């Protein structure tokens, strides 16, 4: 039994499901083991601080029900028995949706997100919520009201953000699959920093119903996993129109088995653009890893094509104006009237609202609310907000043109490997620039995968590097398949971080 469980934790979600279906362990035993590890992972000096809440009772109930279903001969779902961690901005019964904020610290949603429900319906078992930058605003996890999460590759470094907890949990091997959200890179960048795979689908592929909004025209629910095939599996469950989200696409779900089944990399045109591969602030070691990965793709039959994306230089500014504008409106509902924390209830209504928001929000959230309020305010909206939307259109047009010449676009996921905790906290602009390579896909709404493409030397050991694979809107399966073919032809997937559970640390 212990051996069977060890095998589970060594594998990805596909393997996990297969092992359970083969009867190597019951779902209940597997879930108990996950719960025990989740409990231990937050102990001692190596604590990840990746978990915000655990729903042990709910997970056990769910596991027992799955075992009973199995015993009764019911057809198991595609995620049968797979434990998942949820970013704390997804509404789920039984798990508080704090969004990493003091304001919502104890808030339990009165309904369940469509994405979460679809996972559960497919047989997955939500076990915990993962730490995150408050309301998704951050690229390091350090903007969580509940303290920063550590990177399993180097506890002195950030796991990236804002899906910091979910990424660290998957990288540390505590769960095989996690659900995050990606607004400007919040799943891809932590996936890169933690050496795992993360995928932001085409905008509208996955319902946002029940995802606490940050930037509504950018937000997508996005999975994190140890393999690209797990992302495919997960996306096949998550994707598809939802009557509760009017921006979901009517196209049928992405089905991995049918997605370009016979695709090889032969003749695939891989676009590389200088704006993303030679940009300012790009770590030469990161660039070298991505160049090597492109070479590998070419070895596998792909053709390298040079494309241009001139507006990418303005993507960070464009993204922060648009996202902040939407955030300033999306976060207006946190007024201390209907839910969440309240301050100043004895003062006037408007003073109470202001005091509640002052006490409830952290500094970065306030900064973005201020920025967003400013760019929408009278006298500034045309010059900032509308201008940003026009630049957004130009960037999208440039991407469309690039995809005339190439099938996928390859770029580094982040300009550097995981940076040190505290490195950018005093300099918000430096933190924003860390998003430079992920925000173009977000602004355009196109799918983008981050897949490990090697390691660079850090002071405390190797640090993973992620490669992004962008595809045209709706070509999610193409991005995933290119990433998967690369992944299966490279050694990075099997590298595990040095982090270990407290009682597994060698004496």
């Amino acid at each position, binding site marked *: 039994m212990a051996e069977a469980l060890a095998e589970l934790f060594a594998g990805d979600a596909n393997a996990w499901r297969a092992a359970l279906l083969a009867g190597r362990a019951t779902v209940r035993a597997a879930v108990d083991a996950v719960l025990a590890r989740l409990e231990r992972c937050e102990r001692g000096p190596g604590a990840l601080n990746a978990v915000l809440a655990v729903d042990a009772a709910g997970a056990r109930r769910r596991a027992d029900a799955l075992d009973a279903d199995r015993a009764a001969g019911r057809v198991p779902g595609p995620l049968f028995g797979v434990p998942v961690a949820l970013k704390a901005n997804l509404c789920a019964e039984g798990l508080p949706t704090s969004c990493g904020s003091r304001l919502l610290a104890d808030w339990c949603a*009165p309904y369940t997100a469509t994405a979460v429900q679809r996972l559960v319906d497919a047989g997955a078992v939500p076990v915990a919520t993962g730490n995150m930058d408050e309301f998704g605003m951050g690229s390091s996890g350090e903007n969580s009201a509940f303290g920063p999460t550590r990177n399993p590759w180097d506890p002195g470094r950030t796991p990236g953000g804002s899906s910091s907890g979910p990424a660290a949990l998957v990288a540390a091997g505590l769960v095989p699959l996690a659900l995050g959200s990606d607004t400007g890179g919040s799943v891809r960048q932590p996936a890169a920093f933690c050496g795992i795979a993360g995928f932001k689908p085409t905008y509208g592929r996955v319902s946002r119903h029940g995802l606490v909004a940050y930037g509504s025209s950018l937000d997508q629910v996005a999975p994190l996993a140890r393999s690209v095939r797990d992302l495919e599996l997960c996306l096949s469950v998550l994707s598809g129109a939802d009557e509760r989200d009017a921006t979901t696409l009517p196209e049928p779900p992405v089905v991995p088995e049918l997605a370009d089944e016979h695709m090889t990399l032969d003749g695939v045109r891989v676009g590389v653009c200088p704006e993303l591969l030679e940009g300012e602030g790009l770590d030469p070691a990161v660039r070298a890893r991505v160049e090597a990965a492109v070479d590998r793709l070419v070895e596998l039959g792909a053709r390298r094509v040079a494309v241009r994306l001139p507006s990418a230089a303005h993507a960070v500014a464009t993204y*922060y104006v648009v996202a902040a504008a939407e955030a300033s409106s999306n976060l207006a509902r946190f007024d201390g009237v209907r839910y969440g924390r309240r301050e100043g209830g004895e003062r006037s209504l408007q003073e109470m609202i202001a005091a509640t928001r002052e006490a409830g929000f952290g500094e970065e959230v306030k900064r973005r609310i201020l920025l967003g309020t400013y760019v929408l305010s009278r006298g500034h909206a045309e010059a900032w907000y*509308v201008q940003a939307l026009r630049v957004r259109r130009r960037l999208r047009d440039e991407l469309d043109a690039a995809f005339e010449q190439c099938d996928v676009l390859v770029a580094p996921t982040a300009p550097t490997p995981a940076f040190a905790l505290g490195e950018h906290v005093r300099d918000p602009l430096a933190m924003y620039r860390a998003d430079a390579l992920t925000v173009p896909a977000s602004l355009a709404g196109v799918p983008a995968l981050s897949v490990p493409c090697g390691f660079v030397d850090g002071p405390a050991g190797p640090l993973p590097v992620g490669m992004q694979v962008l595809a045209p809107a709706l070509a999610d399966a193409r991005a995933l398949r290119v990433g998967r073919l690369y992944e299966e032809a490279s050694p990075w997937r099997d590298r595990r971080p040095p982090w270990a559970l407290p009682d597994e640390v060698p004496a």
Partner: protein
Amino acid sequence: MAQDEREQVERVARLARLELEPGEVERLAGSFERILEAFAGLRELDVGGLAPMTGPCERTDVLRADEPRPGLPPDELLRRAPERVDGFFGVPKTVRGAEDDG
């Protein structure tokens, strides 16, 4: 930091209902100014001929049938509220229009 940056941040903070503390105003005004400076190049771009791209969603007419569906039971709704009074949400006494409620 210039006085007008501070005043600008204070004005925007009032609009956004953030009751900033004095030290916070200083800090935020400083970073606010640097961010706007860094983003200034955005305003120089000649994109006048392009239609603003509100979002990637290109659908139209996503409509719902006019059919009732169950909502939240009142106690589910109210038990999350900081203040409840006889089935209502309670807030400080206010008269509509007497505050800057828009």
